[in-house]
């Protein structure tokens, strides 16, 4: 359920656009925040109800975009860029390293639900390759040592 504050936020977002429908992407972002990092069916229904749209249409939009999670993912989503500028600066080895450390492969979540590991497309940090993001935070100019320290730090969180 959306909190009262979230609903107020949504009201303000809708005012920024000439149509209610245009608030769909920001509304889905807000819903994902409200629902613990993913979009369960009730979140989609709630957004649909608020924006007066057919739920199927909301779902169609949500599934188009990769950053809306249709399944529950780990508390910390580690996304390592595997596109070409990072690939040639050692991205694949980093993914293997993190996977080994956490005991999971690309696209998997640790049994305790703490980490999900994914490969990502170009994150726009090519001059600081290799790079990754955890949640919304970027980590750049990575080395095996740096990655080790970062994962250890997040394990404690």
């Amino acid at each position: 359920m959306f909190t009262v504050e979230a609903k107020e936020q949504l009201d303000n977002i809708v005012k920024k656009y000439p149509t209610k429908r245009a608030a769909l992407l920001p509304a889905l972002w807000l819903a994902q925040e409200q629902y613990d990092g993913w979009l369960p069916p009730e979140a989609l229904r709630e957004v649909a109800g608020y924006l007066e749209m057919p739920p199927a249409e909301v779902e169609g939009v949500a599934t188009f975009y990769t950053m809306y999670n249709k399944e529950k993912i780990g508390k910390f989503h580690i996304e390592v860029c595997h596109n070409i500028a990072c690939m040639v600066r050692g991205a694949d080895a980093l993914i293997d390293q993190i996977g080994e450390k956490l005991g999971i492969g690309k696209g998997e979540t640790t049994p305790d639900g703490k980490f999900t590991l994914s490969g990502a497309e170009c994150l726009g940090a090519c001059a600081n390759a290799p790079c990754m993001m955890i949640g919304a935070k970027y980590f750049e100019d990575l080395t095996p040592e740096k990655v080790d320290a970062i994962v250890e730090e997040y394990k404690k969180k």
Partner: protein
Amino acid sequence: MSEQPQILFKYRNVENYNNIDVYMKHEGYAAARKALQMEPDAVIEEIKASGLRGRGGAGFPTHIKWNGIPKNWDKPHYLVINADEGEPGTAKDRELMNKMPHLLVEGCIIAARAIRSNRCYIYIRGEYMEPGQSVRKAIQEAYDKGFLGKNIQGSGFDLDIHVHMGAGSYECGEESALMSSLMGERGMPRHKPPSAPLPVISGVWDSPTIVNNVETVATAAPILNMGGAAYGKIGSGRSLGTKLFTVSGHVNKPANYEFVLGTPIREILETAGGPLNGKPLKFFIPGGSSTPLFPATDKFLDLPLDYETMMANGSMLGSGGLMFFDEGVSVPALMTRLMHFYAHESCGKCTPCREGTNWLTKIHDRIMAGGGRHEDIDLLLDICNNIGGRSFCALGDAAAMPIQGALKYFRHEYEALIPDRSLSSRIYAPLPVAAG
């Protein structure tokens, strides 16, 4: 090395340049004030004199776009900033938004004034939460100082700017897909001429719309400050002014750099610290992953990096993502990774791209796995020819062109991966007809 005037990056190293007070101490908002006192068409004239072309990839002359908005239009129309920056190899708009967000906000005021628009949306890719916050903060500061909102600086001109976050889709950088996404739809491209009018006539919400890249608009402020004609004296031919280049891959100092258009590629390589650890380079990609590669030979390293020269040599200036690769990199392996990217990002609207990118990926996968067939190389070229010019938007071409470039110069690397060529051609030869 030639002198490199720093125009966008002039104050790059000034501390707290993202703060409006600091920004204003360094020529900040002087150009916006100027624009607000000018007639909109006079602003467009300055841009025309500067020769500015779109920095988002296609290089379309900016003043022509701006002039396309109907002059007597009194209903709402829109300025939309493309901050989707998804082209692999490109990281310049992120630095602009993180470190110099007011250049973008000021550019928006100038562009909006020129096209008489009171509403601007900045569409930022979903991963760019931090640049998004940075731009939001800058917008708020501009409102507080009276550079946004109603009756800006007493000029009678109103402007509101909103940030709109994307949610993970390369295709949303394509301008008509971006407009769909802004309206709350899936990020698929919209109909274009001849079946539908241009965005400048009917874009978002069926209203006239301009879509411009972050860097394009950010350049407007320095242009007004120095004068369009002075800016247009930099560079040569139809490649005028400076441009940001993201230099990445196997170089010692990968970073964003500002160079005069037409600077020799070798000079850029040297500024970026030369080949990583001195290891010889094999090839480079001039303008982001969609632009065909060149071998790193003297002939190509000596080329000036500008719109015309890249085009004349079968590639493109693109978004300015210059990537260098050393001799340890396998061209087919790199292309395999790229094809997975394009197949993943194809929006699925049209068949040549949806099916074609899948096939390009499958064939690359089998070549890499050692199961390549003798005829696979021609099949790749055939598929590329079927995508090129036949797909609904430029993503199809963007997937096909790199393969064409790779096979033009490095066909032998593909051939070397295809195991027993005589055996494979025997298997696929027509079966003998049984006697009787």
